[in-house]
């Protein structure tokens, strides 16, 4: 198994590791979804996790945010192995994380400002006027000031994601995770969101992890890329190296070439008959 630890390579010298995954294995039932993944992600940079649908990238993200426990392996975030932490300890780590889900996952029963205020109200004892100011600042940051009293159902897809991002930023996290930020958005809105991600990196020096399969996004925002294929990390390194990589699987992905059909009808019959 290849190890992708950038500190050992030329490009990664002097860079600090923020997140380290060592020998991660994960199963859904009997199926192995992640097969012994060892990668690390640099601090204050944008790492994109790319791969085809079903390559395990969303599963990897779920492990990073502590929604799934690995079968084996370590996930070090800020030096702590989150796979062995108890719920309360994990919640402490989670306070330093912000997550933007694919559909933004705003609570539909709360207004935009209450959504953004939610983590602040739950984890701090600030008074309402301070919270109000903080919420206003976060919404301003994502370009949504004036939408405080709107409900998620009244927002467009792009606005929902921005509101979700404001909520993820509520507690000034050290780590930000994005699950397919451009999915379901038009190219203009998606590019706007990408720009916002870059701004967050540059202004706040946040360590950002983005799961995506959109090539324009990948080329626009990535500092560091991890590519997964059938649950294996086939590449980890800077974007430039990805572009010049020889692996046919990487080329196929970057050149947007279709895959050969895997099954002949006979094979397919055999598969469904359980042979």
């Amino acid at each position: 198994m290849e190890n992708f630890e950038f500190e050992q390579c030329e490009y990664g010298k002097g860079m600090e590791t923020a997140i380290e995954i060592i020998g991660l294995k994960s199963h859904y039932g009997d199926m192995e979804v992640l097969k012994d993944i060892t990668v690390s992600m640099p601090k204050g940079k944008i790492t994109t996790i790319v791969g085809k649908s079903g390559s395990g990238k969303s599963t990897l993200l779920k492990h990073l945010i502590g929604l799934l426990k690995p079968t084996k392996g370590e996930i070090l975030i800020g030096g702590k192995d989150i796979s062995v932490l108890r719920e309360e300890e994990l919640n402490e780590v989670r306070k330093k994380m912000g997550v933007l889900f694919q559909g933004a996952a705003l609570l539909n029963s709360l207004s935009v400002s209450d959504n953004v205020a939610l983590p602040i109200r739950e984890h701090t004892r600030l008074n309402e006027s301070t919270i109000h100011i903080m919420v206003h600042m976060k919404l301003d940051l994502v370009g949504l000031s004036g939408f405080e009293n709107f409900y998620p159902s009244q927002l467009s897809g792009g606005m929902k994601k921005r509101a979700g991002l404001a909520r993820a930023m509520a507690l000034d996290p050290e780590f930000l995770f994005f699950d397919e930020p451009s999915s379901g958005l038009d190219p203009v809105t998606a590019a706007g969101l990408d720009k916002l991600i870059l701004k967050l990196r540059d202004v706040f020096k946040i360590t950002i992890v983005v799961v995506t399969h959109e090539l324009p996004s990948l080329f626009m925002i990535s500092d560091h890329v991890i590519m997964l294929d059938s649950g294996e990390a086939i590449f980890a390194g800077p974007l430039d190296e990805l572009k010049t990589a020889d692996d046919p699987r990487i080329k196929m992905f970057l050149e947007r070439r279709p895959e050969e059909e895997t099954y002949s009808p006979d094979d397919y019959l055999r598969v469904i008959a359980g042979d």
Partner: protein
Amino acid sequence: MGVWKMPSKTESLSGLFGRRVMFFREDIHDISKLINDTFYGAFISPLKGKPIRFRASISEMVKTGYDAVPIVAVISLFLGIILALQAAYQLRRVGALIYVANLVGVSITRELGPIVTAIIVSGRSGSSFAAEIGSMKFEEEVDALVTMGINPVRFLVVPKLVAMMIMVPALTVFSDCVGILGGFLLSVSALDIHPYNYFQQTVNSLLIKDIITGLMKAWAFGIVITIIGAHEGFKVKGSAAEVGRRTTSAVVASIFLVIILDLFFTALFYYFT
């Protein structure tokens, strides 16, 4: 191609049985964890500086209690009338029509008030809990809560539990009163019983014990409906269609468990009070 054998009948039967047992075991495990988390969130967390969401609880009370008042009123009123009619049908023969008051009073406070209220609440609130939590699960809102370090059970289920523990007994008291009123209206109009006699007879026949046991049942039913609704909601994984399926099974399972629990309580009170 290899030869694919049909499993023998015994194999498939034991397979079916085994799978059922495994699912059942998993359900029991999940439900006990849910009960544990819910009661921890309701009674222990507030002591540790994580208060119950007061405003959410009030809004749940309005949804589960106040909004159910009209339907509970209509059904209980009719139930009282039906019960009085059926009682009169038998009691008329022995010339003991005045005992309609006893029968209506006792059967409504001890049994029908709590059970009818619980069935209405299962249909209204049990289903809505499952649908609400299920669609939140489906939309990743539950995951979002977890990643924000917020326990979804404490956030979503505890306010519902608090609301149900207060509102189901309250609705039951209301149902008792309206049911007795139904019996009263029929008796004074169609059965020619004097209103004062009916009232006196009802008051004399009812014991505090009858009302208290009814309320204890109602309280327990409230808990069961909340837990089952939430459990079915949290079980949603894949599709929007599953939300519908889970909602249906929340209603079916909670009505079933309400009846089972009722049997248990009735037997308990019969022997021990």
